[in-house]
Each structure stands twice: as structure tokens, then as C-alpha cells.
């Protein structure tokens, strides 16, 4: 018996060492220690042994059982290690590139638009949206643009055919549809919907019938601002734009108001920038946007009492600001969408 036990342990030691997979291990385990295994068979012989030998044999069996278990545990541990190693595969090369597509990018015009929105948001302006297809009334008449103003020319403005119908853009009467030439039309739609005070910005796409070159694009983007309240002053207008450009370009920036003319503001100004740290524009004043105090005629067209309400409005070209901020020298790059361009702005 003792010899048989010894032989069993030795056999198990040999067999288990050769195992590398779990099914073989389970089979071996059953063969050695399972209910029908060899150890069980030997244990069964214990009953037939003489009574006085039983304690010794029992001890031997327990000893063999212990040894077998140790061998099994070791084999299982080894197999588990092998399994994990197999699951892992070869070690990584941390310098290999990811085969997944590279990072996405936000378009620079979106980045600039959002930066402007954040700056104005801090000063209490909320973003409103308006349609790109507009009508003559919202785009021109309500903004105090005379009926024969050159901006309305077929030369400069895209029109829809006379009989065009737009299901979800309202007309004032039966006036003609066009592609908005500025985001100022959103001022009108907002004021018609909402009672003062109003403090909004409206970024969006606008259209001019321009020949496309390095500085002109037939589609481009503007950001319109409007503040209506009691006792709004020219000084307040200067303050918000100084705040804008200092937020955008730093405290060293200088702004200059220059008298100008727009039908929808009185007084009207153009704003020039000068920034020593901004290369090209550092040397001279660069025109950046237009603004002014809302003309009483505009208030009248939306039913605000110009005796009670005052306000300012401003508008800027998002492309122009983006070109200045990033140093882009050709507006067409914004609409070409070469990834080598797009990846530069994050």
C-alpha cells in the first residue's frame, strides 16, 4: 500500500508537470483524486486492511492526499498563469501609433464663435438664432434701409424667386424672400417676440453676392449684438466693446471709435483695433466691426417706444476676427476644409 501510494504521488508529479491546459488538468485531477480516481481506489483498500494497520495506512493516505493536492494546486497555478499569458498576447510597444482615427477637430469658425459667445455670456448676453432665409422687411425695411438702397440690389443680395414660399420663415406682409445679408435681421425678430430689456447676441451665416477672393466670401459669418434698456449710452457701447477686445486679445489692446453711417443706428461708429503684440495689425489701426446706438426708427418698426427705450447694436465678421486671431491670410481656407488646416486650431 505504501509503495502504491508512493508510486501514485510520483506518477502524479510526473503527469501534472507535463500538463499545460485546463481540460487535461481536470482529467488528470479526476484520475488521481476524483471519486473514481486512483487515490479513491486505494482508500477503498483501507477497509480491507488489518485493523492495527489502519491508523498507519490512514496517515499514509492522508499524507499522499496532501501531497497530491499540493501538486494539483501547483499545476493549476501554472496553468492559470499560462492562460493569462495567452490572453495577454505579446507585450505592447508603447511607441506604436493607435490605428484608430485621430482626434476630431472643431472648425476654427466654430471655435471663434464659441469664444465670442462665452465672452458675451459673462456680460449677460444670451444667444438667439434666426433664419438664413429672410425677407426684405426683416433684413432691410425694419432696419431703416431706404427702398432704393444699393444693398438691396440684385447685384449684391441673393433673392429667392418672387413667388417662392418658405413654410417656416414668416413674412411681414407679402414681401420677397432673400438670403440675409447680415445677422441684424435677428434683432428685429427678437424684438418683435420679446419685450425690453433685451440683451442678445446672434451668431450666424450671412450671404453677399461677392466675387470670391482672399478676403471676400459669398458666404460668411457674423455675430450681432443688441442691448435694449432704459438709459443706454454711447459710453456703455464703448465699454462692452473694450471688454470684448480685451477679453479676446489682452489688456494691451487699443480700440478706437470712428464716426460712420448705418441706417439702423444713430450715432454709428466703426471700431478700429491696434495691438502691438499682434504682428500685422500692431502697426496701424485695423477696422474690425461696426456699431451704434439703435436708431429710433428701428424701435418704431418693432413697436418699442423710442422715448422710453434706448439701446446699442453691433456686428462683426467672425471670419475677420478668426483671421486676425490665428493669422490666417486667405478666407477661402475656411471653406476648403483641408485637414492640415483644420487640425491647427484647438
Amino acid at each position, binding site marked *: 500500500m505504501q509503495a502504491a501510494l508512493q508510486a501514485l504521488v510520483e506518477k502524479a508529479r510526473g503527469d501534472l508537470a507535463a500538463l499545460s491546459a485546463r481540460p487535461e488538468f481536470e482529467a488528470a485531477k479526476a484520475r488521481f483524486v476524483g471519486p473514481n480516481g486512483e487515490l479513491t481506489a486505494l482508500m477503498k483498500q483501507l477497509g480491507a486492511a488489518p485493523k492495527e494497520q489502519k491508523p498507519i495506512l490512514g496517515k499514509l493516505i492522508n499524507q499522499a492526499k496532501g501531497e497530491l493536492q499540493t501538486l494539483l494546486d501547483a499545476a493549476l497555478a501554472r496553468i492559470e498563469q499560462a492562460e493569462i499569458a495567452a490572453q495577454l498576447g505579446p507585450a505592447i510597444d508603447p511607441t506604436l501609433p493607435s490605428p484608430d482615427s*485621430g482626434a476630431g477637430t472643431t472648425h476654427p469658425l466654430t471655435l471663434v464663435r464659441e469664444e465670442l459667445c462665452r465672452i458675451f455670456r459673462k456680460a449677460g448676453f444670451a444667444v438667439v438664432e434666426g433664419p438664413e*432665409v429672410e425677407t426684405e422687411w426683416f433684413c432691410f425695411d425694419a432696419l431703416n434701409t431706404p427702398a*432704393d438702397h444699393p444693398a438691396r440690389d440684385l447685384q449684391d443680395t441673393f433673392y429667392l424667386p418672387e413667388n417662392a414660399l418658405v413654410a417656416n420663415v414668416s413674412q411681414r406682409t407679402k414681401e420677397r424672400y432673400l438670403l440675409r445679408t447680415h445677422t441684424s435681421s435677428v434683432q428685429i425678430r427678437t424684438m418683435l417676440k420679446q419685450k425690453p430689456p433685451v440683451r442678445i447676441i446672434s451668431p450666424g451665416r450671412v450671404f453677399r453676392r461677392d466675387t470670391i477672393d482672399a478676403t471676400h466670401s459669398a458666404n460668411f459669418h457674423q455675430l450681432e449684438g443688441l442691448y435694449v434698456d432704459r438709459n443706454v*449710452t454711447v459710453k*456703455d457701447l464703448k*465699454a462692452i466693446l473694450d471688454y470684448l477686445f480685451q477679453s479676446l486679445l489682452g489688456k494691451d489692446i487699443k480700440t478706437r471709435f470712428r*464716426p460712420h453711417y448705418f441706417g439702423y443706428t444713430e450715432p454709428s461708429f466703426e471700431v478700429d483695433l491696434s495691438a502691438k503684440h499682434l504682428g500685422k495689425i500692431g502697426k496701424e489701426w485695423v477696422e474690425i466691426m461696426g456699431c451704434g446706438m439703435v436708431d429710433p426708427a428701428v424701435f418704431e418698426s418693432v413697436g418699442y417706444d423710442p422715448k422710453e427705450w434706448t439701446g446699442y447694436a453691433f456686428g462683426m465678421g467672425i471670419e475677420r476676427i478668426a483671421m486676425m486671431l490665428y493669422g490666417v491670410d486667405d478666407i477661402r481656407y475656411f471653406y476648403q476644409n483641408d485637414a492640415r488646416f483644420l487640425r491647427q486650431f484647438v
Partner: protein
Amino acid sequence: MKLSLNWLRRYVALDRPVDEISNALTMIGFEVEGIARTGLSPIANVVVGEIVTRDKHPGADKLSVCTVRVAPEATPIQIVCGAPNCDAGHRVPVALPGAVMPGDFKIKVSKIRGVESNGMMCSARELGLGDDHGGLLVLPNTLTLGTPIHEAIGAGDVVFDLEITPNRPDCLSHLGLARELAAWFRLPLQYPAIKTGEPTAGAPAVPHLLESVAVTAEEDCPHYTAHVVSGVKIGPSPAWLQEALQAVGLRPINNVVDVTNFVLMETGQPLHAFDAKKIAGHRLTIRRAAEGEKLVTLDNKERVLTERMLVIADAEKPLVVAGIMGGANAEVDATTTDLVLESAFFKPTAIRATAKKLGLSSDSSYRFERGIDPCGLLPAARRAIDLILETAGGQVVGPLFNVGSAPATETAIEVTPDFIRARAGYDIPDATMRELLEAIELEIEVRNDVTRLTGSIWNVKVPSWRGDLDRDVDLVEEVVRLHGCDKIPPTPVVAVALPEDDDPITEFNRAAGAYLVGQHFHECANYSQRSGPETAAWFSDAAAKTLGLANPFTEEYSHLRASLINGLLENLRLNQDRRTGATKLFEVGRTFREVDGKIHECLSVGFVIRTESEDAQWLARPAADFYTAKRHLAVIAANAGVTLESLRVERVAAPNAGWQPDHAATFGRLTDGCEARCGLLNLEMLRKLGLAGGVVAGMLYVLPEKVAEAKRRAKYKPFSLFPAALRDIALVVDATAAAETVRRDVAKAARAAAGGKLALENVRLFDVYQGKGLPEGKKSFAFSLVYRAEDRTLTDDEVNAAFQKAQDELTKNAAYAIRK
């Protein structure tokens, strides 16, 4: 508008540096777009010389060896010259040794290719006179040799090129701008003295010169005046007049025409001089043209007129397109002895319409279009007569023909200094404001307001040339402008909080962009216009008919875009060809869809994914497919409050220019607020576009008004904390069966079988199989059912019972068999 500084100084003693004047013009609202200088500042040792001989340089083909006399009677000196025009006899600028030229270039005696050269003959550019470097600047032969060049050429002038905004036609003149600058610099303004008086009242007409003037189109010509000047002698203008006109870019013609142009540029009032003998019947009529009537204008082009156009006609024919351009047939020429001088007011809109229609613009029409001073007609005419008598002789004869009258111009504005300060937002003393307004000739009458404790009311009378001023706010602009925009004080922003959120549309756009950027897409921007044929092919003929612009700029951009995919495909192609490695692009923007002949403006998100790339990867990843696109669309639609899976879906079956039939699908209908389409794009179309491999795309349309409604706050629902019990079922179904239909049937049966005691939480499809082991025309869907109770752990028995019941129920439907 070109403003000559020499000319300006006739009216205001302006001795400031050019930079300061330029800055002043800009700061009072007349942006300086360019400054041109003529003439020379003194340069020592540069004199007028004459080339005496010219010989070829012995050692260089392109050089000449000249001898040049640089003082009367002096011995000529030798100069080597490379200019093509250094011919003997020319008088040219000569820089002698010791001269320092612009750009700090010092002239010395030197040897050029072995030949001694004692100076340099100069081109215009070498003197700093513009860009001409084609040859030597050839000077008039009347100049005395040895004269310093700056004396020969003259001290010159500075000409500002100004942008005059449309509200300020009064400043399309030297006097108008002089008035503004005088106000800014607080200098007196000197109007030119006028000698000519009113013609003798009731003087009889001189019938052989001009018998009558009649206006039959009073609406377009409210005021017309004519003087007759007899006995003029046409000839060249004096030098001062020629120089003045040349400075502002006008070509001198003869003394009379030059005077009318001078007065136009001085006062802004266009004038027209007729040769009296060319006026048939000695009668002028201001009338509408007859339809088809013809006139050859001064530029020698025949103009065909319409009945909307205003002409000045004689008894037989039109002589002038009123306010725009004269005809060749009544031109003042060398033979003219008697003049009729017109000074009139034409309606701006009438002139604008005619000028536009004829495609003809002139200095006169530009001013009439913008509005001339309605009271400036006679002063300008008299000023011109003064100058005609001075330069061409003659005398005024007959009466003043004066038809109609100036349109009403008396404007008075009531304003208080407090109002101006309140609108400006900063303090400007009453006295300062008053000084500023009076400087531009506004007359202020101060009334003390008895109803107020402080302050006064100003009654401000506006001069006739300032038609742009008629409201109190207009005076705010004048004060702020003349006080100096640079004096608007800096101040922090004061912002009262307004409880408004950003527009839900903005938030939707942001969320869509952020998601796709997070999914490694590049955001693009494309034009909102596409071509007609493409719109017809991708959508319909009706769409192409409805979405066309009335006045497109080019055929490729003639229609409002109905999809973002087309632009993105062009971007993919560009990135493919340029090997940038970008294969995933998107755009967020407005699109326009036609439904029942009506345009619907939509918010939209479009994306494209190339399924292949030129850049092989060391490790393969599964390519994108319909299901990739569907997932992206579902996430984006959710931001607009739309559940994509809840929309009616239809596979694209019919041949389609854009999408690959059977490999793309449409979700929902635009008229219900949301429509989406995704899948594989038409492979043939992609091949034609030059895109290699496949492109998977997605396009979501949402009506803006739908997004505005979408905002809802979520409400918490409790969920079970007990374990789930899972059962799998595989059904054999027709190969054509739609997965979602079957899934719903399974869910319905299982839910019914579960009853109220245990909840069927979810039914999820996890396998689709077709092929070996299944009959022809069949496939199998395998679903995983998740059971869970809210209040306890489910027992196997109850789950098994419910599951069995569900299977029994399902197989009652002949379309379904359990796959064993």
C-alpha cells in the same frame, strides 16, 4: 472723393502736418483710404539738365554715355545712363555728385564699366514721385537749365482719397470738407466771394440765345435754373484751374467746362454748360424721354432711353441725360461764344434709377443720387459765372430762368443739452456743445424752460445742406463726433443679469458638434449653395425648381443646399487627393428642403466616413457601416428630443443618385419635425466623384421650431435592486423579416406571459444567422430576455413558466418557429 490740400487751403488756413489732417478727417467720419503726394520737397544738387549727346557705352549694350549741360552756357558733363529714353535734346532731372536721393542714396563721381559718370539722370521713381521707372522723367523744354528740381516741378500737393458715407453728400465737395475741418481745428472758414448778382429783374429774354425753359416732369426736377452768358472766348484754362482739376483726377478740357467741374468739386453742385447755338428752337424742356429715344453721350456711346428717364431737350431732341451726362451734340467747343448754364435739382431716386439702368455714372450723378444742397443752385451758378467771366470773358444777358423751387428744407430740431449728455453717457458742457454745433453752422436759439428747474431747451436750425439732420439723436452724433470719439471715457461693463438661456437651437448645434468631434470627426464649413442638376438628381425636379435662387452668382452655386453630404464629399475628395489622412468629416448647418413646393429651412447635421483609407494601418479595425451611422444619428437626434428608433423607417429601395439602394434607410418625415437618412452612399456616384472605396454617411434634418419644443427636464423613476434572470430565445423567421418587428412581437408575447408579477425589463437582439442548418429563405434572430421583479429575487420556476408561456404564444404565429 479726392480732396486736394492746396484746394482746401483756399477756404481754411490749415497749416497742420499731413498726418494730423489725415487723422482729423478719419476721426470726424471721413475715412482716409489713401494719400497721394505730388510735387517734391527740396533735394539739394538735383537740377534741370539737357542731354547734349548720346553715344553707346563701349562695354555694355544697354548703357549709353551722354553729355549733359546742367547750367546755361556750362560745359556739358559726362554721365553714364541705362534709361532707354536718354535722347539728346531731352531736359531731365540730373542728380549731381553730393545729392542725396530718397532712400538715402548718395550720388558720387564713379566709373561705370570703365567710363566716368558725373551724376545720375533720374526717373520719376528715383525722385520719389510715384512708381514710374520706365525711363527718365522728361521735363518741359521751357525750363531753365540749372533750376533746382523742386522749383521746376513745384512744391506739389497732397491729395486725400476719402470714403464719404451716404448720409454726407455735403462733403462730396471741398467746401463741405473745409467746413468740417475748420470746425475740428476751430479755424475760420472763408467762403469764396461771389461778384455776380441776380440778373436784372424782368430783363427780357434774348430770343436768339434762349427763349424759354419749361419743366414738364416737375416731380423728378423740382427746381431748374439757367443763366445765359454771351460773348465768351473758349480756350485753355489758366494754370491754377488746370492744376486744381488735375489734383483731383479730372482732365482739363477748356475754360468753361473746367469752371463747371471746378465749381462741382468746390460746392458739390453739378452744373452743365450748353452751347446756346446748338439748342434748336432756343427752348429747353426738362421732360421724360420718349421710349426708345436715342442720345450719344459725351463718352461717344449711343444710349437708348426709356420713358422713365429724364432728359434736357431742345425743340427737337434730347441734349443731356439729366443729371448724369451731356450729349455730344450740345457740347461746348472751341467755336462756342454763348452759353446756357444749368444749375438744377433732380430727384435722387430718379437719377439713381436712370444711372443704374444705363450703367452710367458720373461725378454729377453721384452727387444728385445722394442729394445736393437744395439751396445751393444759385450760389453755385453765380460762382461759376464769376469764374467764366474771369477766364473766358463775356457777360450775363437776359433773365434768370428759374423754374420751380427748392424742396422744403427748413428743419429745426428741439433738443436739450441734458438729452445729448444722457445719450452720450458722459459730461460735455453746454458751452462746448454749442460751440461744436455752431462751428458746422447750426444755429441755436436758447429757450429757458419754465417747467424745469435747470437746463435749457435748444431750438437748432439746420442748414439746407444737412438733410441728414432732423432728429434729436442726429445731434447726439454731431456732438460726439466733433467733440472727439477718442473722448468717450472708458468704463467697466455694467450688466444687469437677464434670466435668458441660450437658444435651444444653439445648444442642439453645440451638442451635435461636440459629440462628433468626440467621435474623431473633423468639422467642416461649406457654402449653403449647390447646383441645380445635383439638387434634381439627389432630391427631385420639384426640389430643384423650388430651391433655385432668383439671381445666382454662378451655376455651381445656384440652389439652396438640401443636404450637407455633397459639400462633405468634396471635402473628402480634397483630403483624399492631398493625402491628409482625414476620413471622417461632418458639418452642422442650415439646409433647405422642398415639401409640396414650399421651402423648409432645417437645422441639420451631416457626416461622412470613408470605409477605406490610403493609409494602411498596422492593426486592422472594423470598417464603418450603416449601423455605425445609425448609432451616431440616434445620439444626435436625442439632443433634439427625437428618439430615432421611434421614427418610421424605410429602406432606400429605388435607384437613388445619392444613396446605395438596400444599404441605406430613411427615418421619419420632415413635416413631422425630423427626418434622417443614413447608410452607404451610391458607389457608382462615389466612383464618378473620384472617391476610392465606400462612404458611409448620415444626415439629420430637424425643423428649428421642433428643437425649441424639445427641452424637458428628466424625472427620476425608481429601479429594481434585485438580480435579473436571463433567458435566450432563437426564432426562425422569413429571410425578409425585419428585426425590430420580430423583437416587438417577442417583447409583446413575453410581457403578456410574464403578467403582473414579474417584469420583462428588456428584449435585446444579439444574433442574426442565415445559412447552414436553416431552410432556404429563412434566417434566425436570437434575443436575450431580461426578467426582473421590483420587490424580490425571481425563482427559476416562475421565470421558466413565464418564458415557456411566451414561447408557446409566439409559435402560435406561423411565421415564427423556435430554433432548437
